[in-house]
């Protein structure tokens, strides 16, 4: 019997700690499939953040780091500079990347570090129990915005991909979503392209993935998918924000 579906080699055969319905698992799988397809498991090094995906170092089969909160792009910079022939990726949540780690991500991108960032935007601090993130939508209720995010006092969400796309060092930035099968397929294509451009030594690449947190949104997984579609995608439009290879003849 032919095997048509199996665990990617880049993922270890261990149970994950993610909540039922959480899309972190899908995103892990997409990254792992890309590593397999590109045949780069042997020289890939991943950097896990502080956030729900803190234990990603136990799940990916490549060499892994656990970084301090927000510092993954700096850690990845150190790795890539020390071992230039490696393929380095960071996997970061929105609190990690867009709040405490804003300086690190902006400067890694501005320097054109040859790394790939997988930015998982679920509009909330998942791990600490659902507090407001820089990406929390106006009016969104969280533990620390109990009356809904009031833009007069808490300001506005950051559209990170659009911001990073303005930097010359960033060569490829795309926002994708994992709310549907077609979108998951697009997400994988984007991740693959980001890794490929890193392998070609082009510069900094980032894929922002809109993701759900049913637990802290207080919704069932299905309701959460619906909420993402109806609320997040309008605020965070999907698509390529920057691609220096656009128009290149293949």
């Amino acid at each position, binding site marked *: 019997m032919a095997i048509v579906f199996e665990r990617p080699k880049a993922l270890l055969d261990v149970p994950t700690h993610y909540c039922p319905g959480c899309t972190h698992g899908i995103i892990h799988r997409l990254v792992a499939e890309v590593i397999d397809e590109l045949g780069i498991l042997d020289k890939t090094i991943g950097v896990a953040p502080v956030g729900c995906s803190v*234990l990603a170092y136990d799940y990916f089969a490549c060499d*892994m780091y656990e*970084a*301090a909160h927000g*510092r993954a792009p700096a850690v990845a910079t*150190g790795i890539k500079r020390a071992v230039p022939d490696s393929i380095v990726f960071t996997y970061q949540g929105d609190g990690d990347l867009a709040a405490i780690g804003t300086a690190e991500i902006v400067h890694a991108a501005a320097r054109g570090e040859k790394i790939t960032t997988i930015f998982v935007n679920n509009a909330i601090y998942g791990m600490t129990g659902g507090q407001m993130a820089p990406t929390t939508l106006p009016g969104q209720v969280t533990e620390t915005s109990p009356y809904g995010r009031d833009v007069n006092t808490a300001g506005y969400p950051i559209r990170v991909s659009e911001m990073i796309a303005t930097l010359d060092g960033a060569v490829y930035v795309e926002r994708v979503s994992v709310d549907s099968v077609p979108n998951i397929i697009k997400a994988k294509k984007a991740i693959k392209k980001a890794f490929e451009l890193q392998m070609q030594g082009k510069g900094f690449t980032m894929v922002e993935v809109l993701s759900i947190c049913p637990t802290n949104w207080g919704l069932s997984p299905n309701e959460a998918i619906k909420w993402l579609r109806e609320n997040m995608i309008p605020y965070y439009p999907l698509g390529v924000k920057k691609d220096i290879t656009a128009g290149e003849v293949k």
Partner: protein
Amino acid sequence: MAKKVLMKGNEAIGEAAIHAGCQCFFGYPITPQTEIAAYMARRMPQVGRVFLQAESEVAAINMVYGAAGAGVRVMTSSSSPGISLKSEGISYIAGAELPCVIVNIVRGGPGLGGIQPAQSDYFQATKGGGHGDYRMVVYAPSSVQELVDLVQEAFDVADQYRNPVMIMGDGMLGQMMEPVEFKERQTTRNLPEKTWAANGLRGRKIHNVINSLYLKPEELEAHNKKLQQKYAEIEKNEVKYELYNLENEVDIVIVSYGTLARICKNAIKMLEKEGIKVGLIRPITLWPYPKKAFDEVMDKVKLGFISIEMNEGQMVEDVKLSVNGRKPVFFYGRSGGMVPTPAEIVNKIKEIVGGAK
């Protein structure tokens, strides 16, 4: 024998690191250590190595974490406010047991403080500036040659124990021009292969993970116990100090380190002429602290010990712990960038000796 060259302390730090095989340097400008970064910016590309100016000290120390975890020799340098920012990263580096060298050319604090020489980061360096039960080897050289030798030693010690090592100096040492020799040195240490490094599987079967997270209390405690064993090993093997003018009985012993210890030696010569006999314990490692130096000289000391520092009284606590009530302990300090003069030290010691007579 290699020939001697005249070099500034700050530049000598850079050259010594290059001699020691430092592959990556990550820095951020801050007075009075910026010349280290400038030197590395010039020299590292010449030898095909990495210099990178980070966006902050926070980023720089995390770049160190990345490079050290990949198994290469790496250094960063800063001065007091920058070391405060690095402290988070130093704690992670200690927790993940990564070897690296951190230079602190100390300036006066607290806060933005000043830019003049000080020793007010003694607590931060030796008692842990960052969180958690960790220790860092701290060297306090007092001449440019010693600085060069200790930078090279620091890389070896860091690799041997998989631990961060700090070189602590001040602006005087950084600016001082002295003749130095970069000896072709072969380490006598048995440096373990870095089989733990996360630099890509490259045929290895099991992935390496650089990490300081242990969610299970029993595991974190076991990790802490293992670290403590390592620290005990370092305390046993790596203590360094100089005893000066302590062959015979003395009235009092000065305890002082770094450039200030040189000033104290001048004061000791001046006091000698007035018939007051003074010895000096100069800690070269601030951690592990040279407690045994005190045991060695205890019987030769008439009046006690005086800790002389460029702060308001930090190392004096370790002096008291080392003396452990066997003799009186005195203190004299200047801070904020004020450097005690030999005459000031002479007066202070005469006051103590006179009072006792």
